[in-house]
């Protein structure tokens, strides 16, 4: 019987700790045939599981160009993520997916890309950044604004340095007031304000904004003032999910099942959804 709830078994290849409570993992398909035929698009998500503890939903934060393995990132917050936290290289975890829609990377070609992220929202942006950098000639200027509460809460901080070395890439780091250290060379302030102060040119641009609801709330008016249209602003909604395949009944916002019709939405689409996310 074809069991849609059956996960792939994944071998943990690498574990990286980013902050006191955030880790990312690189995992490879145990079954070589599956590994050879598996593909996904940046922006899609998976249901990852720790056997004996349960399943959790995370974005696949690696680029879709990276073959043979995939990566995901999580904060230690509950039963499953605590079990994943204790998972070591060589251990086996479960993965179902890829699920959901993806970033319209083809439609974004020849445009300037503005990535705005807060806290644990860097991973779902990171996959798109790597994808764009790996296809550098297809995209215009890339601006990355990434903020966290404190310096030690920045996720994938080492990759920010790496991205900055690429041509026509501007990286702006910021931490909330009080979250800085004496050595901190980035900005101090909240993502929407820091972004507005940075005077990023808005012509021919699309923005991907992911972060806590409060960050998104204050960033959208800034983008609006810059002249970005609602159809050029995107986000990824992260409603709670169990099945990931449109059956378990909890991730919907109005008549939209986030797991199937999302998680990626333009602001134009979001404006048509009821406030149910």
């Amino acid at each position, binding site marked *: 019987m074809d069991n849609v*709830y059956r996960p792939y078994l994944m071998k943990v290849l690498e574990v990286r700790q980013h902050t006191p409570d955030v880790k990312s993992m690189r995992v490879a398909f145990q079954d070589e045939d599956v590994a050879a035929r598996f593909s996904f698009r940046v922006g899609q998500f998976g249901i990852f599981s720790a*056997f004996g503890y*349960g399943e959790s939903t995370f974005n696949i934060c690696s680029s879709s160009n990276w073959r043979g393995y995939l990566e995901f990132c999580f904060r230690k917050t509950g039963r499953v993520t605590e079990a994943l936290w204790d998972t070591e290289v060589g251990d086996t975890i479960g993965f179902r997916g890829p699920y959901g829609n993806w970033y319209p990377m083809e439609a974004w070609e020849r445009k300037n890309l503005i990535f705005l992220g807060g806290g644990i929202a860097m991973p779902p942006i990171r996959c798109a950044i790597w994808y764009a950098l790996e296809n550098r000639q297809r995209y215009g200027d890339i601006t990355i604004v990434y903020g966290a509460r404190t310096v030690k809460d920045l996720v994938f901080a080492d990759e920010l340095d790496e991205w900055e070395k690429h041509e026509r890439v501007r990286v702006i780091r910021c931490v909330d007031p009080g979250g800085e250290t004496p050595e901190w060379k980035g900005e101090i302030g909240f993502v929407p304000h820091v972004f507005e102060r940075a005077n990023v040119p808005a012509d021919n641009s699309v923005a991907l904004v992911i972060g*806590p609801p409060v960050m998104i709330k204050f960033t959208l008016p800034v983008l609006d003032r810059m002249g970005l249209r609602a159809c050029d602003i995107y986000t990824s909604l992260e409603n709670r999910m169990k099945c990931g395949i449109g059956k*378990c009944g*909890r*991730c919907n916002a109005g008549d939209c099942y986030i797991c*199937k019709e999302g998680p990626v939405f333009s602001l134009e689409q979001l404006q048509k959804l009821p406030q*149910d996310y």
Partner: protein
Amino acid sequence: MSISLQSLITMVDSWLGEGKRVLGPKLVKPDFVQYAWLGAGSELQLEGFLRPANSIKEVVFPRHETLYRYRVDGKTVQLLEEDFKPVETLVLGARPCDAAALPILDPLFNWDFRDEFWNLRRKAVTVVTLACQSWDEQCFCTSVGLGPDAARGSDVLLYPLGNGHFAVRLITDKAAALFGSYADEDHPDPSPGPPVKFAPDAVKEFLQANFESSFWQENTLRCLGCGACAYYCPTCHCFDIIDEKSSRVRNWDACQFALFTLHASGHNPRKTQPERQRQRLQHKFRIYPEKFGEILCTGCGNCTRNCPVGLGVLNVLKAVQHG
């Protein structure tokens, strides 16, 4: 021709003897009839009650089921997947409002991703439905396009003749072998059923226009979030997936529970009971019809009968009409 209660009882016993399962109305305690797995034909109860307290959805969608088992051995995991072969099952004495729920849920379990647990169980189930002769003030099947002898989801319809016999109307071929020889060309006129209490289109329009509305606060704040409505509902199908005892299992869940939509961050899109009540009504009368062309409600009235604070679909919809 008609079939006698005695023949039905004999039929149950012979099925049970062949190792098949039979779900039917059973007096589980004084004045309380539930659909239950029958241990003998004599337990079958076909008269003297309005409708069983629960629904039949459990025959295809158990409240607790194993999706697969696994063995963890140090760093390796082995998935243990047995061949899933559901036992052949007869539902004898379903109400039309219970039988109709099964085809209503088929598209949900099959859009893009086919849930074979549901599909294989559906194939293994024969539904023999007992037409209604009475209704109570909570019944509203006629408002959602069904009725006392609606054939949807049924393989056979039985009409009580009042003399210990039942007229037999074959609906599908599935039960022809069992009931073919008893089938009647004519069947008695059904009871008229409950009066129509609302128009689904008007409800849909109201829901469309009143997502943000004080209506929910005013009329549903008293919801306790117990989930009884969902557990008794023939069409509520929300579920949770958890791990227990080296198994990944699926359990019934309910949109009225506070944890249902709670994010890991602490954010909850539906943080109060009125928002959860709104979701339940929206899902049944607007979202599901838009997605699948079906009202996710059969008018059985179970949610109202079992609500400790007098809510349930019907009472909320009454408030819509008076609002």
